[in-house]
């Protein structure tokens, strides 16, 4: 028979200590960045004025968003496709059960980690120095970002596949590449598509942020209008972006659900 163990006593010192630590850390960090509650309250009036100027959204501006918006989507698509293709070998070589020896595995893992550690803005800057600010640099940055996202997730799915089929391919005299193509990838395909769609969602958002630093598209328009104090247009842009991102996420999610 199962006897329930006695309920452990609450560890009060630990609880109080944790709370004290969190409060202390927050105060210290806030102090560090010059955050002051009084100042914030004084500025609320300014915030209110800004809000008033931003309303109502300037719907007449909406048609002019069409072109930049497409550009944003193009950047996201190119990033997803290029990155999605390059992520395939990176993921396969990072999967312990499929890789080509310890050295390759180790190198690929580290490569993957470096890609993942550096933020997309860093890559945008790197490519901007190489090819100049603009959509191309944005698409390249998102390609790198996509490799990082997909390869990390997918290499983990690949490590969980049933190795029976890959072995059957090898037993039939197949090469390593054929073992991957015919034995492993069919099992990981659903996950791959799902991760690629997820990467696309992230890329649409990232593509807007990259626009703020000059990669073109909707983010760039937003930055221009903000700099010109056209706050009603800014509101319009933010609304449009909100709707578009929600739509894309819904679409992508419904496809992914259907795949699962």
């Amino acid at each position, binding site marked *: 028979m199962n006897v329930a163990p006695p309920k452990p006593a609450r560890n009060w010192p630990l609880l109080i200590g944790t709370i004290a630590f969190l409060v202390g850390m927050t105060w210290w960090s806030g102090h560090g960045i010059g955050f002051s509650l009084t100042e914030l309250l004084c500025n609320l009036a300014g915030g209110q004025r800004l809000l008033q100027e931003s309303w109502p959204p300037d719907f007449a501006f909406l048609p002019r968003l069409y072109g930049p918006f497409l550009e944003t989507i193009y950047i996201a698509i190119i990033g997803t496709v290029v990155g999605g293709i390059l992520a395939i070998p990176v993921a396969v070589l990072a999967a312990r059960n499929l890789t080509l020896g310890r050295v390759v595995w180790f190198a690929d893992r580290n490569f993957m980690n470096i890609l993942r550690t550096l933020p997309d803005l860093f890559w945008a800057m790197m490519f901007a120095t190489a090819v100049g600010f603009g959509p191309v640099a944005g698409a390249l940055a998102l390609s790198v970002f996509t490799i990082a996202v997909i390869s990390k997730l997918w290499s983990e799915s690949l490590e969980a596949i049933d190795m029976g089929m890959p*072995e*059957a*391919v090898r037993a*039939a*005299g*197949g*090469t390593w590449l054929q073992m991957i*193509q015919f034995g492993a990838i069919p*099992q990981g395909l659903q996950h791959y598509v799902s991760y690629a769609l997820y990467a696309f969602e992230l890329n649409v958002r990232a593509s807007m942020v990259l626009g703020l630093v000059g990669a073109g598209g909707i983010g760039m328009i937003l930055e221009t209008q903000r700099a010109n104090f056209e706050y009603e247009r800014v509101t319009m842009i933010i609304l449009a972006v909100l709707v578009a991102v929600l739509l894309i996420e819904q679409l992508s999610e419904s496809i992914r659900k259907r795949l699962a």
Partner: protein
Amino acid sequence: MNENQGSIRFTDGNIVYPNGTVGMKDLNLEIRPGEFVVIVGSSGAGKSTLLRAINGLNRMTSGTVEVDGTKVPQKDGRELRLLRKRVGMIFQDFRLVKRLTVMSNVLIGRLAHVPGWRAMFNLWPAHDRDVAMKALERVGITEKAWVKASQLSGGQQQRVGIARALAQEPAIILADEPVASLDPVTTHQIMKDLVRINRELGITTLVNLHFLDLAKQYGERIIGLRFGELVYDGSAANVTDEDFRDIYGRDFTEDDVLDEDVIG
């Protein structure tokens, strides 16, 4: 089909797994081209270890295994692939790509026969499609060629597994407990298929079984393994219950036979 008809020879073969388990012990064994050999032994006796040594899926710790007088290469590479091309394998769990058609699965048996780029882009030569279709014909499921493998029954899936092996146009077929996941009726059908194919094409066939009555009914030659050692080698016609008792090291239970009324 092959001038070399698929002879196998183990010489002082030993396999010790990295964790120290002995999978094969001092094995000396010769199998002639075209033989139908059933390998029996209780679970863990080393049946799979023996089969998988023949196509190099398991490496020898010492001793050699030869196919048609050529040593089975002990490292990955072209030589080993060329050997595997001539050795078809059939698995207990079928090992099909469920989401692909039967035809795509059988064509995997042609991978070693066509240029890599053709297989990669699914541009199979007419000849190879033909061989695959003939293989399906041989196991009687041509009408399923364009059906997804996931839609087939267990027995049909194993037939696809056999067809994939046949598509290799092999000199040897290794079947590792091919009927262990099937019901009794299907089991007999698959065993009959294997025997018939062996007779028709003269492909050397090694079948691992753990059912004694099946071994006796379908085997020509029976090999008994115990703790990785060869403890019986003789014709199926002469094998006695006493021999089986020696191989298994214990009396039979219902688990050792497929049709229970066979136990005397």
